[in-house]
């Protein structure tokens, strides 16, 4: 891991925050300044290629990991290019400076950025192509540009003149590309905003879609790896004699992170891996446990350096002193694994000073840089090709498994497909860090909150992954920490505590801990004030129309305040994240074993201008299930430095029989697009927690809310 960290850090630049975010500013030597690098003859810009046979290809700078970018991205091009979505073929872009996600400053698929980053960028790209095709036709036919239009893959001129886009593509390449072409008025959109069918579905229902695990290179062999049970531990010595006796085993090689077995088939490699005898130097990580992580973080709240999330308003201390009532609570959000269904894997061919890397990644530029750094290659000698991702959720922002594949391939001088076992995947994740939030509020005699002091302590992922300097505010820890409510006196403190756990960005990142705390607390304030949680929130949202609107829409759609079946209760929660305003109402009951059952989740979302409302709904449905698992079922625990969850038995995501009905209300809007891949993941936790508290009269302030946790809370 040290090599990866070093190679990342050497390229690191952190710069000013954009709308509260952090520019990761990751660059790879050799790629800067190649924004408009020469490509094939028919590359008008970095995004769109048109072939002579009229095939239009979009190079998508975002990886398809389920969020629908292989549909939303070409929709933006199709709109301006006046073609049917079906006419555009989508391929994944290679690492290149032009493909950097402008919201993050690195070529990263994450942070619910895709549409937000591409909304203007790709429309401009599509419009540029349309304009040069028209200019080319004008030149060829010697007619005025104004008499020419481009539609459905054809360019039409006066007197029946017409040509396919493909016929004009070569000539168009010599035409000047307008930097700022005229974009369509959104009023005239025909593609953007429609429920277009996903372009990737057909390949995903007949087995033909290629994921990383399906890659096959000529002469390829298979590998799997045994890593130290304590993350960060190193190999002291190993005995591979039994492993080498397994039929088909070609080699056993030591790499930085452990020992890899290479064989003619994956099963042979796996069998041999299980026969390895390895002595480990477990390192400092062996001391980690649930207690050390939780108590260390709690201690940091008392003694750690306090960073200001936002400038305090008013006089919190004075207002708390003068309050009629003071309410305090502590909330704990546990560690989580990403556990995407496709185990970590990558295929590498490292020979003759060059590396070809093929597989599922959310971070092409990082893959290139990390492998170049680890193997001592020039970045331009490292080619990265992206397949479909069998789930990402933040796990595939990491580069560990890619570097491993490259190291193994280099060692055996052959193309190698490295596939981890599920157990390696579960126990060698980059875990969502634990968070401890402590909030204190003062209410006046009418129950209105007059002061809030918010504190959160957790671990900085950005310090680990991008070398953010210590004692610097990590915006990816402060998300959703300052809610939209009008409260006169506020203070928001962040304390960064390094527990020693290897942490990573997990879908919705710090929105999860902060909105669970803030929105659980809001219900506790409403209770202390003797007010209805919906009405209480609404009374604090004057002058916040987007917040108030989604709250009202969700409450109305869910039937807030109307009678529910016996034994059922509603809970409500509100958040802004990724530029998206969202409210949720969860309806819950208790099952036979005392477990929480979620019957229905109602979601109202205002995410500004939508590209594909069907994909938006799919992402909300998806996030509900993902967040619900972390709210009610699974967590990551540690003992003696070892993660105790090893497979989908000890880490159980939501299954079909537990899936609630999801009702969605989407707000039509022409505001700038917001992100939708993540926010619902975070909001569902407090919505469920609040419903459970209403139902049982007992508040669980630590996730997950299992039957056991409910019993303990009831007994306390």
């Amino acid at each position: 891991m040290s090599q990866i960290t070093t190679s990342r850090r050497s390229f690191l630049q952190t710069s000013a925050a954009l709308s509260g975010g952090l520019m990761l500013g990751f660059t790879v030597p050799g790629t800067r300044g190649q924004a408009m690098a020469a490509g094939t003859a028919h590359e008008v810009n970095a995004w769109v290629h048109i072939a002579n046979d009229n095939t239009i290809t979009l190079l998508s700078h975002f990886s398809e990991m389920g969020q629908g970018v292989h549909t939303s991205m070409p929709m933006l091009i199709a709109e301006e290019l006046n073609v049917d979505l079906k006419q555009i073929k989508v391929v994944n872009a290679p690492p290149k400076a032009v493909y950097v996600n402008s919201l993050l400053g690195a070529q990263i698929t994450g942070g619910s950025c895709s549409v937000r980053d591409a909304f203007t960028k790709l429309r401009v790209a599509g419009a540029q192509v349309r304009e040069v095709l028209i200019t080319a036709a004008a030149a060829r036919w010697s007619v005025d540009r104004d008499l020419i239009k481009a539609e459905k893959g054809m360019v039409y001129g006066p007197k029946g003149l017409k040509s396919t886009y493909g016929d004009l593509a070569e000539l168009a390449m010599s035409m000047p590309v307008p930097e700022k072409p005229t974009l369509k008025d959104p009023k005239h959109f025909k593609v953007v905003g429609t429920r277009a069918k996903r372009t990737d579905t057909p390949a995903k229902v007949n087995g033909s879609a290629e994921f990383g695990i399906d890659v096959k290179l000529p002469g390829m062999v298979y590998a799997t790896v045994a890593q130290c049970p304590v993350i960060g531990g190193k190999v002291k010595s190993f005995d591979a004699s039994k492993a080498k006796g397994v039929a088909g085993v070609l080699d056993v090689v030591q790499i930085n992170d452990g020992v890899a077995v290479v064989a003619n088939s994956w099963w042979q490699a796996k069998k041999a891996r299980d026969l390895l005898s390895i002595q480990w130097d477990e390192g400092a990580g062996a001391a980690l446990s649930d207690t050390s992580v939780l108590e260390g973080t709690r201690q940091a709240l008392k003694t750690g350096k306090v960073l200001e999330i936002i400038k305090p308003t008013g006089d919190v201390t004075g207002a708390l002193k003068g309050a009629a009532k003071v309410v305090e609570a502590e909330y704990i959000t546990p560690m989580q694994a990403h556990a995407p269904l496709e185990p970590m894997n990558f295929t590498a061919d490292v020979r003759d000073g060059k590396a070809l890397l093929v597989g599922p990644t959310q971070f092409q530029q990082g893959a290139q840089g990390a492998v170049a750094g680890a193997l001592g290659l020039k970045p331009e000698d490292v080619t990265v090709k992206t397949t479909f991702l069998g789930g990402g959720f933040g796990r595939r922002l990491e580069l560990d498994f890619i570097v491993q594949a490259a190291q193994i391939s280099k060692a055996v001088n052959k193309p190698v497909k490295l596939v981890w076992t599920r157990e390696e995947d579960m126990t060698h994740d980059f875990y969502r860090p634990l968070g401890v939030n402590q909030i204190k509020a003062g209410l006046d005699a009418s129950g209105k909150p007059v002061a809030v002091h918010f504190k959160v302590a957790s671990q900085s992922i950005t310090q680990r992954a991008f070398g953010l300097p210590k004692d610097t505010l990590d915006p990816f820890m402060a998300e959703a920490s300052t809610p939209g409510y009008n409260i006169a006196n506020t203070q928001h403190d962040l304390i960064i505590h390094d527990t020693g756990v290897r942490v990573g960005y997990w879908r919705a990142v710090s929105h999860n801990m902060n909105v669970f705390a803030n929105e659980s607390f809001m219900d506790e304030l409403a209770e202390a004030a003797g007010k209805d949680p919906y009405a209480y929130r609404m009374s604090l949202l004057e002058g916040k129309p987007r917040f108030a609107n989604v709250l009202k829409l969700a409450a109305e759609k869910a039937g807030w305040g109307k009678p529910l079946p016996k034994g059922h209760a509603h809970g409500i929660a509100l958040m802004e994240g990724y530029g998206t305003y969202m409210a949720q109402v969860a309806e819950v009951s208790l099952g036979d074993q005392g477990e929480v059952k979620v019957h229905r989740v109602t979601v109202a979302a205002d995410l500004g201008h939508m590209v594909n409302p069907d994909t938006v709904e799919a992402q909300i449905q998806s996030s509900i299930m993902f967040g619900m698992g972390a709210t009610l079922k699974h967590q990551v625990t540690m003992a003696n430095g070892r993660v105790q969850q090893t497979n989908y038995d000890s880490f159980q995501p939501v299954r079909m029989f537990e899936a609630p009905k999801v009702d969605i209300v989407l707000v039509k809007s022409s505001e700038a697009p917001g992100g939708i891949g993540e926010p619902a993941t975070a909001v569902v936790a407090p919505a469920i927690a609040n419903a459970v508290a209403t139902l049982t009269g007992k508040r669980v302030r630590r996730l997950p809310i299992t039957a056991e946790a409910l019993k303990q809370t009831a007994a306390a």
Partner: protein
Amino acid sequence: MSVDFQINGKAAKANAETDTPLLWVIRDELGLTGTKFGCGAALCGACTVHVDGQPTRSCQTPISSVAGKKVATVEGLSKDNSHPLQVAWIKHDVPQCGYCQSGQLMSAAALLAKNKNPSDAEIDAAMSANLCRCGTYNRVRAAVKDAAAMMRKA
């Protein structure tokens, strides 16, 4: 020693060691990569195939145990997406990342082969062994019902 069986209606021969799970023979030896590896412990259902019509976790099925049997994979539903389940999956745009979907489809196909009008509870019972980390369950349920309706009309 080799194992003879049928895959998607055609004769097949596996040369892998006889303890090799069917999953790895299908994927690495026969090159049918639609069937996925998820957990290696029959917990996630990504590797679901049919063995003599029964939904089976191929990661836990030694190749020796399918000698002489009929194995069906997602590629056997149809290549042109004409199977009612594929039609319904496309209509509802069920897949997100798509990794679990072959297994979902094969579990659904086994259900509909014996029950063309499944209730919600029957769908839950037949499909709950198939994990979807993207949480496509609402759409899976709707698509199974739609496919069942298509099959009843056919």
